[in-house]
């Protein structure tokens, strides 16, 4: 294998890794704080992709602004979904909460896919790139500006999210709810608000992923399937509800996929990935970074 191939595989893997880290970080947050098995996470990715497409192509807004608008829209859609579906479910759910959230979000995913299909049809809405040009590192090794920026956006998104959880009062409150709900209420934290915010934040991360990856994955009604399953793959491998681990895991899975794709051929990368997950879970059922301590950041 020559250096150019290796370089390309690394670039692809790390870029995908950034996306998976964004998506899986959001998913882990939802599970860690709210115990939600969100199977509509991929649909929020699609929301981000569609909004970014319309903002960028239809309205001709600058790329960065289009991506920001898409992230904001996903945040709002997430907040709306939480208030209209998850909150009422929480009020009514007597037991089997996790199973109920799985059923609810799976159904929601079907509804959202079909609504998108009805409204916008099945055609692909993609772009070739937000930003033109390539960065040449050596004569044979280069990376497209578009991909570099997408990766940068993922890194900024993840870092901002991390700092928010660690440093701000509201972030601390989210972590508090993930560790002890009664304790959180007893220091005056409103659980309903935190849960809506958490769902909205997780949705925003997925939407940010969908928007920034628009040149790689075009917007279409079923675009969320693969990112959804892969981010589930990541959070399962690292241990459910662990945000920090999911970020690391996102990059690992991105790289594994990229290399498996090259060496085993298209279509086999999922087989390989799922093979890895089965092996890991056989050896360590709580996941790579799983532990007994409950909390989204503390492991």
């Amino acid at each position, binding site marked *: 294998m020559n250096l150019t191939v290796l370089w390309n595989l690394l670039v692809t893997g790390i870029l995908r890794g950034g996306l998976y880290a964004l998506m899986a970080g959001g998913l882990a947050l939802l599970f860690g704080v709210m115990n939600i098995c969100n199977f509509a996470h991929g649909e929020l990715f699609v929301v981000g992709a569609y909004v970014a497409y319309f903002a960028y192509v239809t309205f001709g807004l600058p790329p960065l602004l289009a991506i920001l608008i898409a992230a904001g829209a996903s945040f709002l859609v997430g907040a709306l979904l939480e208030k209209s579906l998850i909150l009422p479910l929480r009020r009514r759910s007597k037991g089997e909460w996790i199973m109920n959230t799985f059923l609810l979000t799976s159904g929601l995913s079907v509804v959202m896919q079909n609504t998108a299909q009805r409204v916008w049809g099945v055609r692909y809405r993609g772009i070739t790139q937000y930003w033109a040009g390539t960065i040449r590192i050596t004569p044979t090794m280069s990376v497209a500006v578009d991909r570099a920026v997408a990766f940068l956006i993922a890194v900024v998104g993840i870092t901002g999210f991390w700092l928010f959880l660690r440093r701000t009062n509201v972030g*601390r409150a989210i972590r508090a709810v993930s560790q002890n709900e009664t304790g959180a209420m007893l220091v005056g934290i409103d659980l309903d608000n935190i849960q809506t915010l958490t769902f909205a934040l997780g949705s925003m991360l997925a939407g940010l992923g969908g928007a920034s990856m628009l040149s790689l994955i075009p917007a279409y009604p079923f675009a969320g399937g693969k990112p959804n399953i892969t981010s589930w793959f990541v959070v399962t491998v690292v241990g459910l509800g662990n945000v920090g681990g999911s970020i690391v895991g996102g990059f690992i899975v991105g790289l594994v996929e990229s290399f498996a794709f090259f060496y085993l051929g298209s279509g086999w990368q999922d087989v390989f990935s799922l093979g890895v997950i089965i092996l890991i879970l056989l050896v360590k059922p709580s996941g790579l970074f799983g532990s007994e301590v409950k909390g989204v950041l503390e*492991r």
Partner: protein
Amino acid sequence: MLEVSQLQASYGPLQVIWGVSLHVEQGEFVALIGPNGAGKTTTLRAIMGLVKPLSGTIAFNGQTLNGLKANQITRKGISFVTEDLDLFDGMTVHDNLILGGFSLHDRAQVEGTLESVYDLFPILAERHRQLAGTLSGGERKMLAIGRGLMLSPSLILVDEPSLGLAPKLVLAVFEALKQLHERGSTILLVEQNVYTTLHMTNRAYVLENGQVVMEGPSSDLLRNEHLQRTYISMGAAGEGGFPAPADGGGPAL
């Protein structure tokens, strides 16, 4: 200050509180004592809105608390140190305390209270960067009480602080509560450790089978025959889950 009247509440499907009335006035140190399963904890949880009362009213400074959520009641100025402490185990001592002041927006006030909590519990200052989950039992109680104090509450409810602690630590925790009271805090304390509790509180209610069977100044109750027989002598014999006073005699609390 706190006025509970004719409270009825259940623990799960089982009604355990049958018409409890009690009141706590500003600056008082009041105890709620009684055997296991008498409904002491449920009473506190009902006051905090963690258990929905079947009937009866709970008023705080003239405002009714019925129907409010725990976080809203906390914001009225009531701290509740629960039996299981409900700490944030994955966070540092410092973060736990800061979260205690979550509902206050005056940063300077929070910092000031933090200093006074560290002053009251120097061990917490020493361990401020340690995770709450790694503290010892006694330190955890102090952290829970300290977190409750961060709110600068007008009333503190404390549930069984002696539970699971070695006698020496029980005394340390009680000593801290007594100091708090001397500094002007109003406290409603639930305890099974009857003897020590009656020695340091102003007034007490005795709860049995979900009803108040006796109430009055603690010093009177201490001499009461029924209590002597059921709790204190038993406690002195070290039976029935009521630990004997740690130093053998009447603790100089």
